[in-house]
Every structure is written in structure tokens, then in C-alpha cells.
């Protein structure tokens, strides 16, 4: 039984309210997405666009090793970033949820989110300063005497991209895991202890399975924007750390080949969608198997 509203024409009122945001999304999201899809089937003919539908761009994107390499690298880097970020974030979320007193939790969450709200560009740039040949990390390590030569594997390559993005997306991973941990009824843990399990087994058999939805959310939230990141690979990635977004930008703004850029964007979107769907599917299966 539903009891809601003031009785009259709830549907009309709901539609009136949803219309502005829905129309906005339609005009500025649906139309552009359709357009970019259409563009990917057209081709650039010097300064004009040839509107005859063709699969030329897709053939090129899939056969040209440069594109394939960029796409593969983007997926691998985004995967590495996601894994690193989530693995590093879980203990923090667990600590705040289980070991921080209730009245201090929002302070901790606040502290974790603050760095995230400071200029992304400047943060990425500062990682370049930290990881550089004469950077903060190298000069500190040399000063302390741990190393003699500056480490070179930490800047202008994929490692630097992973470290920087793991930093940039940390709160995105911590928050959903924290929320799912907070939802766990603490008496379940006591029940597990009461039934004879120790701390470790209680964690493995109760806490971790119940935190899975949060981990899945964190994985998606980190993976999706990471695969399309532009700034970090450009600033700290060097030639070996460039990703698909950099190529899309190059096609659009440097080579003036919008159709090719559109094709790469569509491919990137397709990859994101497929991976997201696989994850959601696995999560469903997991939840179903447990219920």
C-alpha cells in the first residue's frame, strides 16, 4: 500500500519537477553522445568532414599498433591504479569504521577528503616535484643515505602515473568501503566470536563478505575516471605513460581529426561499459549466491 503526496496528480507533479534536469541531460548528454557516435563513422577529409558512413576509423584504431598499445596501456594502468588504490584504502576505511570512536569518525573522514578538494592540477604537478630526479623523495633518500643514485623508475613512466592517480582517487575508494563497513551490524561480529571464530576468521568470514558491495563500488568509482584521465599521464607519465585520453585530445585539438578522436572516445566508452558491466554482473552473482 502506498500512502504519499497530497493526493492529487502526483505523477504530473513528479514529471514537471524532473523535466528541467532530464531535458538538460538530454540536450547536453544524450545529444552529444549520439553525435560522437555518429562522428566515429564519418571521416576527416582535410578541413571538411566526409559524411559517408565508414568503418575506416575503427579498422585503423584496431590495426594501428600505436592505438592498440595506448588502449591496452590505459586499461592496464587504470587496473593497476584501481588495485593499488583499493588495497591501500581498505585498511583505512576499516580503521576509521572499527577503531575510531564514533564521535571522531566524521573528523577522520573530513581529514581524508580535504586533500581531494585542493587543485588537482597543482597536486599532480607537486607529485612531479616529489618524484623527480632532484625531487623531494630522491634528495631525502640520498640525504638519509639509503640510496646513492637518484631513483629514475619513479618519474616519467607508468609507475609515476599509478602513484599519482592512487593519491588522487584515494577518497573515492575509502568512502564507499567505509559506508559498507559502517552498515555492518556489530553484533554479527560478536555472534561470530561467540560461535568460536577468532578475530582473523571473523574478519574473513563476516566482515569481508559484507564489505564486498563497498569494494565493488570503490573499484568502479576509481577505474572509470582513471581510464580517461588526461592530466596525470601528460604531466608525470613521460612518453611511456601516455594514455588514451591524451590521444583523443591530440586527435581533436592537434591533428584536427575529430572522427578519429570520436572513434577512440567511443572505444574507450565501450571498454569502460564492458568492464563495469562485468563487475556489476559479478557483484550480482556474489550477492545472489549469498542470499
Amino acid at each position, binding site marked *: *500500500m*502506498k*500512502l504519499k*503526496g*497530497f*493526493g492529487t496528480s502526483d505523477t504530473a507533479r513528479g514529471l514537471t519537477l524532473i523535466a528541467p534536469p532530464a531535458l538538460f541531460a538530454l540536450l547536453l548528454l544524450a545529444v552529444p553522445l549520439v553525435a560522437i557516435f555518429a562522428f566515429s563513422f564519418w571521416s576527416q577529409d582535410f578541413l571538411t568532414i566526409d559524411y559517408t558512413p565508414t568503418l575506416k576509423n575503427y579498422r585503423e584504431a584496431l590495426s594501428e599498433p600505436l592505438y592498440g598499445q595506448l588502449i591496452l596501456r590505459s586499461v592496464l594502468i587504470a587496473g593497476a591504479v584501481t588495485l593499488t588504490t583499493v588495497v591501500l584504502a581498505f585498511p583505512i576505511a576499516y580503521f576509521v569504521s572499527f577503531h575510531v570512536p564514533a564521535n571522531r569518525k566524521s573528523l577522520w573522514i573530513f581529514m581524508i577528503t580535504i586533500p581531494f578538494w585542493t587543485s588537482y592540477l597543482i597536486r599532480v604537478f607537486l607529485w612531479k616535484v616529489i618524484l623527480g630526479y632532484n625531487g623531494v623523495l630522491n634528495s631525502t633518500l640520498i640525504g638519509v643515505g639509503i640510496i646513492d643514485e637518484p631513483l629514475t623508475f619513479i618519474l616519467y613512466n607508468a609507475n609515476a602515473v599509478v602513484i599519482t592517480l592512487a593519491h588522487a582517487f584515494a577518497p573515492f575508494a575509502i568512502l564507499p568501503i567505509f559506508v559498507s563497513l559502517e552498515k555492518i551490524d556489530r553484533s554479527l561480529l560478536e555472534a561470530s566470536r561467540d560461535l568460536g571464530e577468532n578475530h582473523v576468521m571473523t574478519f574473513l568470514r563476516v566482515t569481508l563478505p559484507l564489505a564486498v558491495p563497498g569494494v565493488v563500488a570503490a573499484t568502479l568509482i576509481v577505474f572509470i575516471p582513471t581510464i580517461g584521465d588526461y592530466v596525470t599521464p601528460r604531466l608525470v607519465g613521460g612518453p611511456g605513460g601516455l594514455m588514451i585520453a591524451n590521444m583523443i585530445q591530440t586527435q581533436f585539438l592537434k591533428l584536427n581529426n575529430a572522427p578519429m578522436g570520436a572513434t577512440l572516445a567511443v572505444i574507450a566508452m565501450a571498454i569502460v561499459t564492458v568492464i563495469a558491466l562485468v563487475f556489476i554482473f559479478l557483484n550480482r552473482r556474489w550477492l545472489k549466491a549469498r542470499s
Partner: protein
Amino acid sequence: MTTTPPIVSLRDVHKYYGTYHALRGIDLDIGAGEFFSLLGPSGCGKTTLLRTIAGFEDLSSGTLLLSGQDMAGVPANRRPTNMVFQSYAIFPHLSVAENVAFGLRRRSDLNRQAKAALVEDALDMVGLDGFGARAAHALSGGQRQRVALARALILKPKVLLLDEPLSALDKKLREQMQNELRRLQRHVGITFVLVTHDQEEALIMSDRIAVMFEGEIAQLADPQTLYRRPTSRQVADFIGVMNFLPASLTAGSTAASVEIAGLGRAAITPEQCPAGMPTGDCTIGIRPETMSILFDGEPAPARETSGQVHELAYYGDMTYYDIALDGVEKPVTLSMKNLVGRRVLERGETARISWDERALIAFAK
């Protein structure tokens, strides 16, 4: 009961939510100054009916008159009704006085002092004098309920609608508020329509009660009639405790009689039996307090039978016995006052039982 013209009048009211038929032809008149209760299990449509009167739900068909005026198309804010919500709906950002004064905002005929005086009076009436400056979230459950009452009554509605107003309170406070609500209603003389699922609460407070099941009014009567003469087994089962025994009805030349499993043959008057009930298999209902255990050769005032104590529950003031009668599958429940010197039987003991055929009620099978 309703000699004065009705304040609330519903005729063949139906309400659908999609395909769900929430109200199925409600006909109801509520008189001026009545304390009226809508009683039923959750999902029976009682809250929907109340919200229909308030104007929060449209009728799918039928008519609703409030003091003779058709309410079709009249929104809740124009109706002469006010509501006390189940959650009390005390505005958390306003003080107690601001909450109570809320409905007076549009009364341009009153100046500030007059409004303040009315608020004073209303708070005084519900026993909250001096609470006006309190923040709303600093109130206890009982105080919130009083604020909700004052806020609604200050507008002097023709009908005050109360949606399970006592369900959030603990037992002691609930009993106290039942008395207070009843007293308040007599004092202000406004018609109260109360929705509740608590049959005891309805019996204590109401002038009349409509028992609802599945969107229909199953019985409409005053508390005593409802308890003593329920017209259906469902109503009898919902109000208080009743034992049901299989029986067989035979119509005699002058009076009807029933053959009851475990009790034997008994005469039955038309009053105890719904009109036009067919002869043959039926069900006989008998309330626990109309039967008693006979101690130490005490003679039976009316009829007598015997059985074995199957289970017992000691309540302090009362003891409830489940007695297994010969030829009856389910033990019957009876209650005894724990008077001075009266002993409590033990399980397995054989008990002599007194019963009275005037207490029987027949239901169709």
C-alpha cells in the same frame, strides 16, 4: 446515537491504488461530538479512510460530506479537519509556541497578542503551560503528542483526526494519555476520529467503533455491543479473546438449540444468533471470563462440565487456564481472578468447569 445531523458522512466510498482495492464501499456517519474509532489490523484501510477524510487521498468513487458539504475537490488545507500524525510531525526548526501557532499565521483578524493568548490557552489545555519557548527537538514523546494536539485543536476544527497517536508511547504513558484524550475530547466537544490497531484502546476511549477488515467495515457498534455481540467470528477474534467450539444448530418449534462439542446441548436465543443462520454445522463462541473453575464441591450456578488443565499462565491478578475438554481438539481458555484463598491449579489436574448458555454466541461455520 446520532440524532444530531452527522459531521462526517461517507457514502459508498471506494479507493483504488492501481489495481489494489483499498476501500470497498464504505458507508459511515459520524455524529457531532462523538469519539469515534476506526479499528483494524494493519493494511485494513483504516488509515486510508482517515486520510481520505483529511483530504490527503482522493476518493476513487463515492461521496464524502463534512457537516453537509461535499468535499470533492476541496484540498486538505481548506477542510474543517485537522490531524494528529502518527509521527506527530512536530516542525523541528520551530519552537513549541511557533508549532502551536503555525495554523494561525493566516488569521488576519487576530493581532499578535490575541494569537499569543490563544497559544497560551492551547498549551494550558494539554498541560504544557510554560513550554512555549522550548525547542521542538528537546521534547519527549508524550510532550510531542501534546504539542501536536494543541497545534490541531487551536484551529477549532469540526473534526480532529488522530492517526495511531499513542502507538509510539510506552505502556504506562499510553494508558495515561488514553484517559487524557478522552477527558480532553469531552472538554472541547469536538468530534474525534481515531485510527488504532489496539482493540483495548478503542474500547476504553470510544463512543462508537468501526471494525475494518480488508477495506470494509465489518461491524459498527458501541464498545459493549461490539464485545458482547460481535456479528462475525473475525470481529469476535479481533476484539479480546474468544474460544470457538464446533457445534450443530437445530431449530425447534419454539426455540433453537445447539449441540456443542465438549459442552453439550444448550438453548440459544435469536439474540445470540445472526438472523437467517442455516441449521446444521456452526461455530459457538464463548469468552474466557464467562467460564469459571469450581473449587471444593462448590455447586455450579448454571451448567457444568469438566476437563484437564493443559497449560496455565499466571498473570498475578489473573490466571489463564487452557483446559482440554472431552471431544474438543483445541483446549478452551478461561480466566480466573486470583482471589484471597483461591488456589492455582496445576497442570494435569482435573477441573470442574461452570459455564452459562447466555454467554454463547453462534457464528456461521
